[in-house]
């Protein structure tokens, strides 16, 4: 397994290298060369030269290319125009955790919704339900996303008032707060991450257990433990709690909106994958064995139908990341996606390309995760030694 991951990482690194090179040559394709775009022309000349030297963008084109790419790998992304003299990496660094939070939850939510709905709809074939869920899902998938976001805001925030209209937090509320937004968010992220790790560890241990009942016990135990942990964590931080809730409150609507648009892809695929799987002989065998319907659907059919869904998840990720950029902009939620768009509009080239690079990294990492997951799920792929 480790060898597999290492090999994949190397492949990812290569792909990223390719990606950066393409970005570099795109920058070069514009009038003037990269050094004139990458360095803010409005700053004094001596400073320009300094930065140019540091970035190594003052040589031949091949020199520049090599320096540009290797700079990225060492974290040297240039200096932002708009937030001069903040280095790009710092500006992005601040935003990444937030975007990760958004993407992860939206992905999980859309996946759970999509898979569960797809599984159930395929099991109870035909009827009004299947038709309407399918059409509803597709309509959500193809709907014009910014427009849909606006509608969601109008409905849930403006009209019903359940959620705030935009932003990361409520400024007035935080006026004299003893914490910064980033601090609180960091704590939120930490608590959720630890809870998540508890669950994952629990699942791994549960998988190893011999007895069916032990497996179930450990699995349920890990869920309960993580919830208890979250409760305890936040119980202890009574002062921070209202601020944390404020941030959370602002995050719910963007996450749900993104998940709604993304789930249909998973649902449709799960449905067709299930339909294919249900035709298999081992399903008939399971019925013959007297396995209860819900177990046939979940343990036999869905488990196999899962495999192509996981593979196609890779495509879905690109969709979610793109959707995430739009979501952040519509909801004025200050993540990396919003950063990308804003930087582009104000022509802050280093910032925009840096953000783009990071989005590329995100996509590749997610791809790696999915690959590993697939490896775990499909024993036929797994067993070959030295993979």
């Amino acid at each position, binding site marked *: 397994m480790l060898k597999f991951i290492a090999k994949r990482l190397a492949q990812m690194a290569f792909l990223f290298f390719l990606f950066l090179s393409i970005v570099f040559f795109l920058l070069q394709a514009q009038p003037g060369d990269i050094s004139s775009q990458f360095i803010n022309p409005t700053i004094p000349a001596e400073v320009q030269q300094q930065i140019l030297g540091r970035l190594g963008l003052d040589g031949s084109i091949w020199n520049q290319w090599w320096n540009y790419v290797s700079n990225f790998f060492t974290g040297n992304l240039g200096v932002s125009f708009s937030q001069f003299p903040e280095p790009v990496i710092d500006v992005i660094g601040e935003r990444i955790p937030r975007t990760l939070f958004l993407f992860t939850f939206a992905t999980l939510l859309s996946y759970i919704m999509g898979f569960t709905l797809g599984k159930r709809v395929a099991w109870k074939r035909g009827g009004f339900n299947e038709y309407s869920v399918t059409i509803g899902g597709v*309509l959500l998938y193809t709907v014009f996303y910014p*427009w849909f976001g606006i509608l969601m805001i109008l409905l849930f925030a403006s009209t019903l008032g359940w959620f705030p209209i935009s932003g990361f937090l409520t400024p007035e509320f935080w006026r004299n707060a003893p914490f910064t937004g980033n601090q609180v968010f960091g704590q939120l992220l930490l608590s959720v991450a630890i809870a998540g790790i508890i669950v994952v560890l629990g699942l791994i241990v549960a998988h190893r257990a011999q007895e069916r009942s032990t497996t179930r016990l450990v699995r349920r135990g890990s869920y309960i433990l993580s919830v208890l942990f979250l409760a305890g964590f936040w119980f202890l931080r009574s002062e921070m709690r209202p601020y944390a809730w404020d941030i959370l409150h602002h995050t719910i609507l963007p996450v749900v909106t993104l998940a709604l648009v993304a789930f249909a892809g998973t649902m449709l695929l799960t449905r067709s994958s299930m339909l294919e799987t249900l035709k298999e002989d081992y399903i008939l065998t399971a019925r013959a064995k007297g396995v209860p319907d819900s177990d046939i659907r979940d343990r036999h059919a869905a488990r196999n139908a899962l495999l192509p869904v996981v593979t196609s998840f*890779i495509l879905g990720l690109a969709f979610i990341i793109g959707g995430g950029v739009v979501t952040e902009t519509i909801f004025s939620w200050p993540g990396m996606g919003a950063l990308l768009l804003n930087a582009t509009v104000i022509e802050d080239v280093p910032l925009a390309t840096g953000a783009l690079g990071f989005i590329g990294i995100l996509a590749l990492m997610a791809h790696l995760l999915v690959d590993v997951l697939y490896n775990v799920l499909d024993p036929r792929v797994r067993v070959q030694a030295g993979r």
Partner: protein
Amino acid sequence: MVIKDQESAELLEQDLESVPAVELHEGDALPESLWKVRWRLGWAAFKKNWKLFAENKIGLIGLFLILLFALMALAFPVFRAIGPWQNDAVYDPIIGYDAVVQELEVVPTEADVVDPATQINAANAQLWCFGSLPGDTCEIPRAPAPPNSDHWLGTDPLGRDVASQLTYSTRAAFFLGAVAAIVTVVVATTVGSMAAFYGGWLDNFLMRLADLVLLMPLIPILIVVSGMFTVTMPMLGIMIGILSGFGGTAIVLKSQALSVKVKPFIDAARVSGGSNVHLILKHVIPNVLPLSFLYMMFTVTEAVSLEATLSFFGLIEAPMTWGIMLSTAQTQGYLRSGLEFWWLLIPAGLAVSLLAAGFFFAGRAMDEVINPRLRAQ
């Protein structure tokens, strides 16, 4: 003629039976011209495919939506030339201006305004009707104006007729979709065929590239690119086409090309001296075309959505598209107040969504017609 499966083979048999058997000698002309035979076979295959397609309601809905929009696209030049918008500069989607006038009664002070739809206080009235006094009627141009008999969908914040904007943008959308789709198919077929036929390092490289393209989210890339360059509609179409073409579609078409490559008639063609290029053009492409056509549908869906999103953020250089319509309304704040300015909010967004949905539905229905047979092979 592509024989895809048992059913087509039977159809072929049936049709051939209707051709009278004749003894042919060298140098004879065929009893029935070849193109007629091809036409008849093609038509029979089409009818059969249509039946399969129509069984699925979803496909019909998709087709209906596409036709609806096609009509809308036609509506624009027709209405401009011979219809209600004939020669009326007011109805120009980009530079037209029609101040829909509202008559309001002038009242002394703010406190006296009981119904803002029909009354205005004297101070504000001075802006439009200088020198008016309480009791006078002041005509105030309203933009955006709600739908009325002249403007079926009202006017936008700049006084332009929304309906004409909507229909004009339909043409832009179809145009973009067509460009993107064609470029995708050309690129994907070329890449797929080359990878299949030449194999080796070219195959490897192209597939790595395809992996990369698949992974990368299109929107951020297009955002940055449109920031760096001025992107017009044709350019956008080509870019989307290339990016999609190198991705998943290329992979699918490559495996399709591979399955053609191993067929015996390819060996036969090679033996009689066909070069790779000739083989690709004459044999692979016709076999791969139905699948390509299918992917064109999904490319149009994607292109329409992408373009609308990009122009919503003001990144596209185009005279008028649905995205721009929404963008104008949004930046001037008319979308914040709920459904009050619904004619600015609903039609454009609905148009994008429905056209994209239409192509998607049609694509999925086509998928069921074309793909199962491919899987059976």
